[in-house]
């Protein structure tokens, strides 16, 4: 079905797209936390996009793992994709990818089960998103075959720029966020 090295190329393509989608999801999450939004794009639209894009990240992450394991070119199994630092092939970089996968799974599952867990627990787990994104980036920088190619450099720089700017804006507007949180809690 996949002749030659198609799986190997798909692994790299899906990995890059997963990084971009994760970046967009993080940016939307930060924007929603900051209370961003207007009349045309209310805040719940940003939150809905954040949720849907996060699920899309999982789809591309699943494709990334599936193509990596199915390629059989490097000895990476299903267990190595989930258990960090257990892979015989480049254990550090593959392990970081597995760690990011676990964190993302925890984020998605906790959000899907948000009704059944306490908000504080959900928020605590959600804070790991700030750990998941850089781990994903480092995983790509460490093991990615296209790191030195121009298109991948553009992708990495754009992702770093977007997240850094978003985090800086959030830190600078912390007071505004607190006010938005209070108003949200009062309205709820």
């Amino acid at each position, binding site marked *: 079905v996949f002749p030659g090295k198609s799986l190997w190329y798909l692994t790299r*393509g899906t990995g890059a797209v997963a990084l971009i989608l994760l970046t967009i999801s993080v940016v939307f999450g930060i924007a929603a936390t900051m209370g961003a939004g207007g009349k045309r794009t209310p805040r*719940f639209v940003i939150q*809905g*996009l954040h949720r849907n894009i996060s699920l899309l990240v999982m789809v591309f992450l699943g494709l990334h793992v599936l193509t990596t394991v199915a390629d059989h*070119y490097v000895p990476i199994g299903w267990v190595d994709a989930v258990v960090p630092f257990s892979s015989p092939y480049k254990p550090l970089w593959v392990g970081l990818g597995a760690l990011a996968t676990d964190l993302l799974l925890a984020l998605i599952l906790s959000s899907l089960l948000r009704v059944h867990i306490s*908000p504080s627990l959900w928020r605590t787990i959600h804070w790991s998103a700030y750990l998941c994104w850089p781990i994903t980036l480092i995983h790509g920088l460490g093991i990615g075959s296209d790191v030195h190619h121009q298109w991948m450099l553009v992708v990495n720089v754009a992702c770093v720029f977007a997240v850094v700017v978003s985090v800086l804006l959030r830190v600078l507007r912390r007071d505004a966020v607190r006010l938005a949180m209070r108003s*949200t809690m009062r309205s709820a």
Partner: protein
Amino acid sequence: VTRRHLKACWWQTSCMVTQPQAARDAGRRRIARLTGLTMAGSLALGGGFTVAAQAAYSGKSAAVPAPEVPLDDAELTAETDPSTAAPSLGATTSVEAATTTTTAPPLTTTLAPKVAASAPVVAPEPTTVAPEPETTAEPEQVTEPPTTQAPRPRVTAAPAPRPAPRPRPAPPARPATGSGGS
């Protein structure tokens, strides 16, 4: 809006609950449209990145399977990349390269030192292999290494020297003794 509903919608859609119905519907449609656009863009990007990765893949990436590949092979493939960049991309259609006699001679010349450098035991074999007309398949083995990973060509390159010894045990010596006896 019940208390249970508010609890269920905490944080993610609490502000949605406070919106009027028309705004909610418009927002939902907007979410669906933008999600669809994102999905289509992601698929397009994924395809584009896959094609870009395939096009930009060169001998540098042979460092990925480094544990399995001897350094000599990796270096030689990296050296042969610039010269044989065009045929390397069409590795699957390397039969065409074999038919074109203009490209075949330089490729065989590059293979000979490669085999001799990597495995000294195989070194005497190219001398017997060279004159054989069946060795037209060798360009396939040469064109594959520069494309991508080294181990895959190695698997195909291994059986190539094997057919060479087969003509060696040429039976004409026996008829010489047989004819003398009879």
